[in-house]
């Protein structure tokens, strides 16, 4: 279906933006998939994650409240949250 393909594409793009934001904050290149565990696989602590989110807020011109990160574990979770907030905005 064209619709689901569109959603997939949007997710891919968001995942790529998450990777770029992580690279900006961490100062090193990262390889990510939607399954990448942010804390474990990317060695990102809570402070770095908040900085990545700040970077993403600017890339998407979007507010991402920190309390929403409680359920975010993987890059896919974060992308999904961003896409959800973009629809609402």
């Amino acid at each position, binding site marked *: 279906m064209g619709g689901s393909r569109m959603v997939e594409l949007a997710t891919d793009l968001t995942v790529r933006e998450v990777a770029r934001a992580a690279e900006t904050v961490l100062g090193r290149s990262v390889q990510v998939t939607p399954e990448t565990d942010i804390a474990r696989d990317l060695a990102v*602590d*809570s402070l770095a994650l*908040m900085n990545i*989110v*700040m970077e993403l807020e600017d890339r998407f011109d979007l*507010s991402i*409240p*920190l*309390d929403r990160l409680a359920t975010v574990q993987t890059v896919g979770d974060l992308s999904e949250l961003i896409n959800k907030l973009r629809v609402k905005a």
Partner: protein
Amino acid sequence: MGLLDKHLGYRAPLDGIRAAGADPSSVRFDAVLSPTEGILDGKQVILLGTNNYLGLTFDPECIEASAAAVREWGTGTTGSRFANGTYSGHTDLERALAGFYGRKHAMVFTTGYQANLGGISGLVGRGDHLILDADSHASIYDAARLSQAEVIRFRHNDPEDLHKRLRRMGDQAKGSLIVVEGIYSMIGDVAPLKEMVAVKNEMGAYLLVDEAHSMGVLGAKGRGLAEAAGVEDDVDFIIGTFSKSLGSVGGFLVSDAENFDLLRIVSRPYMFTASLPPAVIASTLVALKRCEADVGLRAQLAANADQLYDGLREMGYAVGPHASPITAVVMPDQAMAVTMWNALLANGVYLNLAIPPATPNNLSLLRSSVSAAHTPEQIGTVLDVFEKLGLHYGLLQRSRRASA
């Protein structure tokens, strides 16, 4: 598998620091001789990392007031104000704080950490918006979690970034609560409060300033950054602590907000903890009067801060953007920070080892705080030790004498 296994990621770093010498998490003083001197492992050290800005911990009047109160009222209140009642000292101190800040209301908390936890979580809740400086103290972040408010961070000390993020929030910016600190505790830098106030007024937000490290330090009367910046009327809430300039322990919130008294029954960190013991309240009351009246203390503190900051900077150390009672020396990496911290201790200088994630931008810092009670000779000694060690470890290129 034990419950603490999840923290094992910290095992190797902690053991590494311990292997390098002393362990900052378990420094034990055999004696404290004065606001500026202590005995560590039988050796006298200069205290340069205790936030004792006005040096009032050994003030004879504060000590006498404290001793008299413990005799008259006993050692503790053994419970919360709600359960065990308020002692006259608690209300005297609240009245004195409200008077000091020229506000209608004040409430006292048992620690500075709890003042942020209980103040902020009492002011905002689910559905409210809390706007934090990215470098906020842990107590502010913990307050944010307890509050369940929606939390947005802005780039440290950046009013334009604050403005951008508030604009992005649309209608929700109005009525949100912005939290900033007077002096930031790690680097000693000051918030651009005038610019922040302009943004706050334009967007219809509230502003809370945590003056923990700026009370007694900034402003002609020692009220902090809001006084120094001339924007007190535009600051809605002030939080502070007794454990720095006032030399005891505890914290407070002052404001003109209507229905302030409701905070006493909705703020869990206020309600469900034992109130401050009378001896602490008594010394704090005296220290508050000294803080307001003794302008000389603030002048001496500023002179000492300048001497340390200028001395370190002129030697070639990387320090913060401007002189402040907090001076952080940036180390090239964590290993050197640990090495230098141990060497400073061995040479009679105690200050704070500050390493990620407790520091901004993953910096490894040697964080110092001066006191009005330091003598110029003590600070001179500290500078000599910093120079000797900096040359020894290759952090400095040449000695002051050689470059003169």
